[in-house]
């Protein structure tokens, strides 16, 4: 069993959904740190100013005002490669929209699309995927 500690970033305009994600991540016992942001711009600043040293898993909501999840990812992808490297991004949405799902696939830095809300099961899957990829 892999119990390597990971860093987490949650970006969601809904405070409630940030709270849920925070709890679920805590419950895995795998978090070295959890940062939640209600504004994507703040998350981008955080990523720019704090060079991550080890793997950071990012959960970003798609539908947000001012800057949406896609815009966040586009801005993220303009950052230098050494900054981007430790990040694994998942995009979240509560609406099952085919266009969104196909759009998510177009971004190389996005690992996968997930349904909201984040649940213990989805978290387990995310961690298993990470374990599998880091083991190989």
């Amino acid at each position, binding site marked *: 069993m892999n119990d390597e500690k990971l860093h987490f970033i949650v970006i969601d*305009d*809904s*405070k*409630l*959904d940030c*709270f*849920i994600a925070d*709890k*679920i991540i805590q*419950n895995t016992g795998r978090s070295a740190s959890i940062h939640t942001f*209600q*504004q994507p711009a703040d998350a981008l600043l955080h990523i720019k100013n704090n060079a991550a040293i080890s793997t950071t898993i990012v959960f970003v909501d798609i*539908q*947000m*005002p*001012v800057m949406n999840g896609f815009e966040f990812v586009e801005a993220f992808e303009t950052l230098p490669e050494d900054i981007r490297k430790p990040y694994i991004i998942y995009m979240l*949405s*509560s*609406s*099952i*929209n085919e266009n969104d799902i196909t759009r998510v696939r177009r971004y190389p830095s996005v690992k996968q699309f997930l349904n*909201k*809300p*984040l*649940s*213990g099961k989805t978290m387990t899957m995310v961690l298993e995927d990470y374990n599998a990829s880091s083991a190989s």
Partner: protein
Amino acid sequence: MNQAKKIKLLYIDDEVNNLNSFKASFRFDYNVLLAASPAEAMQILAQHDDISVILSDQRMPDQTGVEFFEEVRQIYPNPVRILITGFTDIESVISAVNRGHIFRYLKKPWSDVDLQSAIEEANKFYVTSAMLHQKNEELQKAYTELDKFAYSATHDMRGPIMSVLGIISIAKDTKDKAEVDEMLDMMEKAMMKLDNYIQSLHDYYNIRRGGMQLTNIDLNGIVKDLHDIFDVTSRVDNVKFNAVVVQNERFRSDETSIKIILNNLLSNAFKYQRKDIDNKEVNLHLEIKQDNLEIVVSDNGIGIPNDSLGHIFNMFYRAASHEFGSGFGLYNVKDALGKINGKIEVVESKVNEGTVFKVIIPRK
């Protein structure tokens, strides 16, 4: 019938005698424009966009009537085309009719009765097509909104439900009573947000499908209701609510629409306040001035960034990452104003200084 309402016709013929006799026969019933050549006709068409019927002679020196119509149709597809011709050109006429360039053709010399009935038919066709065109545009708009709606509804209605389900499953595994209480508060907020959204939907439907009910508007009564609605927010968030009413004459309009407009403007003013200041305030000024109702809602809140100002009346547009925005409010304001012929006169906003909306609604 007044001049403005007469059907506008354009008749093209290279023989001046024909032009004159046409005008003599029809000038009382129709608004008749004449052209002695296709080139001249093109100039007239460029100046008059409300011509409903074009009649053309077939045999003209520069261009035949059929050729002229083919050209006209590309540039001005709306006016209905009638060709006037002798029997000799029948082949080219039939083919033109079949290709859809021409609505009717009439023999020369014409009988006034036949020509008049053709013009009336052509005009009916013109009016119907224009209406159809307008309905099509409305439908197109409705489809676009429906698309947006379906997209947003899944997010805005399903979102809070999913969140609450998420919280419930976490709460089930939580022993600490204080923590559970905190979660209950969150669920309450999520449900209130959902309810708010459904309320906006209801407004949207009311504006769209509800009829207009014109009554005498009692501004003082409306303001009293508004005080009731916003009293709690005003006290909880410590926002001063000042309302001034100046009504010296009667004002008739649709009360539901006016209430929707006021509710949304005020609820935004209360919602988008700066948290860090002490003198938070929302001001409402209602005044009947020269048969118009003037509404001014101002606040000293967070303001709207310049680059967002152009979008705030769009459906589902949200300028602030404020949790409670549905992107519906100002869209409903615009919609309700459209229904009662009102307009937004002024939107002024400065970030961190406040916002002013001025709305004018004419008497019905």
